[in-house]
């Protein structure tokens, strides 16, 4: 199996949950804002006014995706900042009401690490467990609520395993109890309907680069009745909710991306679902000792996550990359830490199986031919790695293993 790295048989990008390319339509609406309508949106002259129109039109488009009012949209530098703003701002403003926050064990690091840093500031955080599918139970949320609970933050579509959480129900519960609810909808936006009124959420984070907009821009939806304090202070931008000269071109691109995503959502989500299921089935059928991670049906339409036993994730990724396929893994080696994905572990996967996870996330450029290419290329990669894997030999030859007892 040799391949010239620079000339693979095919290039198949299957890491759309990590980031997406900017759509041509999006880039083209952004371009005039770099060097023509380049003004500071706060300036009162013509350059400023043009920029302001760009920003406010984009705000309407983002609001359209979420079924929100434009004034409820606060632009941030991305999903991470939106999550930080939602959590920190609420925690600080509501400190006098209580110091308890409820979240889950399967949040993105942007929420997880922010909760951990709030713990250091004196807040108490409950990290709810999830079932084998990565799903959090509404009863478990209900059970964790106590006097002093000021905020619930539950991810909408889980970024690694694709499980979609029961946010509507959690929203009803939170509303009933008068507790603010934030959801990280970075992965769901543009993939599943996401109307804030249906979801009963008060705060919701999205990120442009996950839906074919530019990187470096995102938004926090803030329900009209909810007050937030800025986390980045300075000028009076974003109605005092986020200081800093507006990233006009980025905002304009983000708006267009949201608009297109919303318009194409019904069709595209069906198309992705069918590609997704073809890929899942193909892998489970063709490669023995593989399991699907995440919920089989309550699942983001573009997410495939499988554990391939006896091989390690990074090794698979490097081989796929050689063949022109871009994917990701929850293995320790790619997580930048020594531990594999906290999400897979929270779902009860043994460490060694978590190390062998492979995430492939589909996007609008992917076709059935891409899937077929993956299903042609992946099985021999796995066989080859398994052949050279000391771990699979452990499985086959437990007996002989005992003779040489050097396992640490």
């Amino acid at each position, binding site marked *: 199996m040799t391949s010239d790295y620079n000339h693979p048989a095919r290039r198949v990008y299957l890491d759309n949950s990590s980031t997406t390319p900017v759509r041509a339509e999006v880039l083209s609406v952004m371009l005039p804002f770099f060097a023509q309508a380049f003004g500071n949106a706060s300036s009162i002259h013509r350059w400023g006014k043009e920029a302001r129109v760009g920003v406010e039109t984009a705000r309407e488009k983002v609001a359209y995706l979420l079924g929100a009012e434009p004034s409820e949209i606060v632009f941030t530098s991305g999903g991470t900042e939106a999550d930080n703003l939602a959590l920190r701002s609420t925690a600080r403003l509501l400190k006098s009401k209580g110091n308890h926050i409820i979240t889950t064990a399967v949040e993105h690091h942007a929420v997880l690490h922010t909760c951990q840093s709030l713990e250091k500031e004196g807040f108490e955080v409950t990290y709810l467990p999830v079932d084998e599918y990565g799903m959090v139970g509404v009863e478990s949320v209900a059970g964790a609520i106590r006097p002093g609970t000021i905020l619930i933050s539950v991810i909408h579509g889980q970024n690694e395993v694709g499980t979609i959480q029961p946010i509507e129900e959690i929203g009803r519960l939170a509303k009933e109890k008068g507790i603010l609810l934030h959801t990280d909808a970075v992965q769901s936006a543009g993939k599943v309907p996401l109307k804030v009124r249906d979801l009963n959420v008060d705060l919701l984070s999205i990120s442009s680069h996950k839906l074919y907009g530019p990187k470096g821009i995102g938004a926090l939806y803030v329900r009209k009745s909810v007050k937030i304090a800025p986390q980045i202070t300075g000028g009076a931008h974003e109605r005092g909710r986020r200081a800093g000269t507006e990233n006009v071109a980025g905002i304009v691109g983000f708006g267009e991306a949201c608009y297109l995503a919303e318009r194409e959502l019904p069709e595209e989500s069906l198309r992705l679902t069918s590609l997704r299921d073809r890929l899942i089935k193909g892998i489970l059928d063709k490669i023995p000792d593989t399991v699907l991670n995440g919920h089989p049906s309550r699942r983001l339409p573009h997410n495939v996550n499988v554990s391939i036993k*006896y*091989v*390690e*994730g*990074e*090794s698979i990724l*490097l*081989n796929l990359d*050689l063949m022109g396929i871009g994917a990701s893994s929850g*293995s*320790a*080696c790619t997580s*930048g830490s*020594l531990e*594999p994905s906290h999400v897979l572990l929270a779902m009860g996967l*043994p*460490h*060694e199986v978590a*190390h062998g996870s492979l995430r492939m996330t589909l996007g609008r450029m992917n076709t059935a031919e891409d899937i077929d290419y993956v299903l042609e290329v992946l099985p021999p990669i796995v066989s080859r790695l398994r*052949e*050279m*894997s*000391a*771990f*699979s*030999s*452990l499985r086959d030859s437990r007996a002989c293993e005992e*003779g*040489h007892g*050097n*396992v*640490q």
Partner: protein
Amino acid sequence: MYNDKVMDHFFNPRNVGEMENPDGVGQVGNPVCGDVMRVQIRVKDNRIEDVKFKTFGCGAAIATSSMVTEMVKGLTLDEAMEVSNKAVAEALGGLPPQKMHCSNLAADAIHEAIKDYRSKTAVSH
């Protein structure tokens, strides 16, 4: 992330496999940590005549396993005991910093195989 030499050893690993009746076997790592390396050696006249490995692990783990087998083949057992994980990384032209700790245990596996060989021969004498 990895340099070309590492990638070459990863994609074209030397001395992969198993041998019949090895003289010594060493295994280090733990599937829980994401790395298991298993080395078998054939010893003749106090030298490593042949060496095979099997590794479960990331790019660095496989490349260092491959590299170490090349380095120790033909060395005396004492010489092979001197080969360090650091030397393996250097022979590969360096590894990314985060890979220096984990995934770079291949020399340890060789040392274990030599110790295994020595303990067995000690017993049989």
